[in-house]
């Protein structure tokens, strides 16, 4: 048998190996894609119920005697009136058969803790409502919402079900009377955080993220561009510059939580800056994103052809003028793309902000850079930790909002790159 035959004999085996190897590569990619699909469908599936809000329509008698106020009462009197009682009465009227103390207490949990504030706000807007009977749609409690949305299976045996038979019967009776309806959950976008899942919203977290990113952008963009210009255009070749470069490369790979430790020890303990404030979060995140933006800006500056610089210098521009008047504008699209990607990274970052105390439970929507606030990813973290079932859908919905912002930012970056990219 000669060599050719030997080779021919082994060919089939070798081709099989080749195909298997190729298949392994394909499977690897497919695994990654499959995982992404599972992740997204899982989260979207869990998030969708959060965008509907369940209401219970109740006939409330707003008698002046019960509330202890009348149309001429002062604002603070109206604010402090007892609205809970009226709502409870409305519920009792619907289910007159409920008499025992324990059952009544259970009955009153049909509406959310926020219902009384809803009523208060309605009356404060329009004091004429006093002494009338109104049909008002009150926010339902999260357990009721879970039953209505099907998150709690009504067919489970009572012992395994969070909502017991008695309550379930009330809910079903309300449903048949048409007193339960669902609307789009605008509150999710207009409320701050809350202990009650049905009232919790992400406006506070969105604004906190916005303020934090504002600080990050204001600090990291100018510093990173300046550093990149210096390192690409002016830096002499010496040990100090080498040391800077090593530092930048290393910082890019330092775990983000270490930046949080830096923020805690230096900015909060040493400089006494306010805890949980967007300004500290912004500073920490800007230190963290600096390497990313510097590296991106450097490659954008490097991509500008030397002929441009030489032409400027040849016409009598100084080095500084050639850089600021010609190189920088040409590199700007690349720099901006890198900056947006760095900002997206900062938006999704959680760990360093945990360290500087942005995990606190904050109801108020932040108005300034120094107020305690939280950010979107931390809101996700906080809600994911909450035991109430209603927070599960809120968590997923907050993740969707976070992903939406990330996708939008990356889309802008891609658009910029496509639109302004020049092949020199």
């Amino acid at each position: 048998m000669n060599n050719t035959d030997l080779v021919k004999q082994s060919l089939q085996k070798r081709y099989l190996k080749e195909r298997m190897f190729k298949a392994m590569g394909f499977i690897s990619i497919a695994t990654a894609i499959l995982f992404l699909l599972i992740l997204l469908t899982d989260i979207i599936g869990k998030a969708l119920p959060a965008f509907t809000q369940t209401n219970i329509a109740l006939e409330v008698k707003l008698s002046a005697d019960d509330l202890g106020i009348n149309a001429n009462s002062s604002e603070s009197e109206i604010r402090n009136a007892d609205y809970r009682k009226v709502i409870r009465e409305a519920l009792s009227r619907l289910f007159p058969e409920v008499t025992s103390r324990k059952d009544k207490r259970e009955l009153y949990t049909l509406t959310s803790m926020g219902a009384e504030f809803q009523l208060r706000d309605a009356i404060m807007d329009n004091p004429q409502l006093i002494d009338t009977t109104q049909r008002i749609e009150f926010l339902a409690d999260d357990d009721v919402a879970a039953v209505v949305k099907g998150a709690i299976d009504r067919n489970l045996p009572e012992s395994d079900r969070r909502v017991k038979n008695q309550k379930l019967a009330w809910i079903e009776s309300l449903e048949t009377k048409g007193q339960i309806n669902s609307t789009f959950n605008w509150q999710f976008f207009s409320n701050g955080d809350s202990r009650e899942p049905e009232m919790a919203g992400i406006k506070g977290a969105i604004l906190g993220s916005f303020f934090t990113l504002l600080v990050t952008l204001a600090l990291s963009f100018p510093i990173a561009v300046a550093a990149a210009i210096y390192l690409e255009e002016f830096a002499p070749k010496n040990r100090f510059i080498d040391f800077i470069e090593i530092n930048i490369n290393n910082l890019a790979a330092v775990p983000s939580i270490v930046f949080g430790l830096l923020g805690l020890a230096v900015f909060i303990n040493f400089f006494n800056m306010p805890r949980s404030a967007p300004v500290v979060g912004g500073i920490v995140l800007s230190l963290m994103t600096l390497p990313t933006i510097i590296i991106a800006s450097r490659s954008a500056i490097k991509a500008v052809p030397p002929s441009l610089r030489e032409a400027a210098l040849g016409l009598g521009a100084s080095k500084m003028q050639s850089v600021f008047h010609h190189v920088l504008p040409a590199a700007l699209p690349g720099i901006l793309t890198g900056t947006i990607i760095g900002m997206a990274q900062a938006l999704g970052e959680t760990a360093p902000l945990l360290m500087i105390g942005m995990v606190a439970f904050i109801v108020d929507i932040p108005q300034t850079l120094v107020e305690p606030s939280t950010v979107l990813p931390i809101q996700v973290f906080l809600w994911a930790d909450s035991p109430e079932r209603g927070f599960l859908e809120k968590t997923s919905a907050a993740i969707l909002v976070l992903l939406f912002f990330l996708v939008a930012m990356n889309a802008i970056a891609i658009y910029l790159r496509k639109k302004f990219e020049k092949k020199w």
Partner: protein
Amino acid sequence: MKISALLFLVLLFAAFSYFMARQKITTAYRQHKSSHKILTLPKYFGYVAALCALLPALVVLLFLQMVEEPYINSEIATYISSEHIDANQNLDLYLNEIKSADTPEKVAALSEEKQLVYQRYHEIEQTTATTISVVVLAISILLTIGALKKININTPARKVFEKIIEGILLLAASIAIMTTVGIVFSVLFESTRFFGEVPILSFMFGTEWSPQTAIRADQVGSSAAFGAVPLFVGTMLISFIALLVSVPLGLMSAIYLSEYASRSIRSIAKPVLEILAGIPTVVYGFFAALTVAPFIRGLGESIGLSVASESALAAGLVMGIMIIPFVSSLSDDVLSAVPQSLREGSLGLGATRSETIIKVLIPAALPGIVGGVLLAASRAIGETMIVVMAAGLAANLTVNPLEAVTTVTVQIVTLLTGDQEFDSAKTLAAFALGLMLFVTTLVLNVIALHVVRKYREQYE
């Protein structure tokens, strides 16, 4: 005077001196029209004058701002002790209470003694604020006047201006150094305080970790133990699982994409990998804790294994998926750096593609791949949110991936979130763990970057 108003005034001076200097030079140029060549544009004289008004004043302002609070605090402390007021509690808390009284009602609610301190506090605050304003404004005005007097046509204004700008650029570049120094010092400083209380050897080699100090002395487990070995083992276990997932998948993805995939597959797969890389870690953590961990638990129970609900496997698996894009893009870089001639030589000798890849490309790219794996390992060790949400809190010394383990980053987060005094061994321990984390990842990164660079040079 408020800081914003002060800044505004200083900026106003800067603008003023810019116009004055420019005006002065423009007039001077006109007078010397025939005899003097214009070498520098008038605006550069303006820039220099403006920077004179601005920069020193800002630097001084920044410095004064930093020392303002400690100064006020120490002044009040002296006042309190001189008036023999019994602060009877922590001085910081006492001062905080006084400072937080920002409305008349809150002031009225303070005790009489505290109101005295409050008044004194306001006096001191007022005087320091006025002093700062006066000093900063004086510097700004004096330097403006000086600059305007000194500037003439022969001043090399553009060169001076460009030197200053270059200095600012250099300063921006050195922030990287300052950050590193800041990290090293903050972590090292707190760690030495920790090692003052807990011997370093028992920290590094102790096998029991229970940082909770009991409130009562007679409680069970009243003394805290800071043996970090279970954390190190847990971290390594989860990172190892993550690497076990990400290295083969990432490497094979990179090979498939660069050597086999058609254009259409690449146009789908590349963005997918980028999306995977861009998903925030907190999302992965949520997914690991609420979907993957119960799934693995159920799977394990169906074949008769007992799986902890916070198993190392779930966290490691999801972390591995998260690192795939990282490994794949690094491998892609090193594979494409292998010279084309090697590929063609092998194919020309009759090897199949897979033979070329396994026997030529991978050995040639091995140092680069090893570097990439080291970087991925450092990424896995430092990853926080996935393990915080999906791994356990209790320190078990085990290498069984089905049990719950805890990691260094998880412990840093649990030790530092919540309200604690900053001086307890418990919080300081977090910094010691941070030091370990920083040193480990630093060493891995330095080795990896060195290996990758050496490898690149080999083919250049």
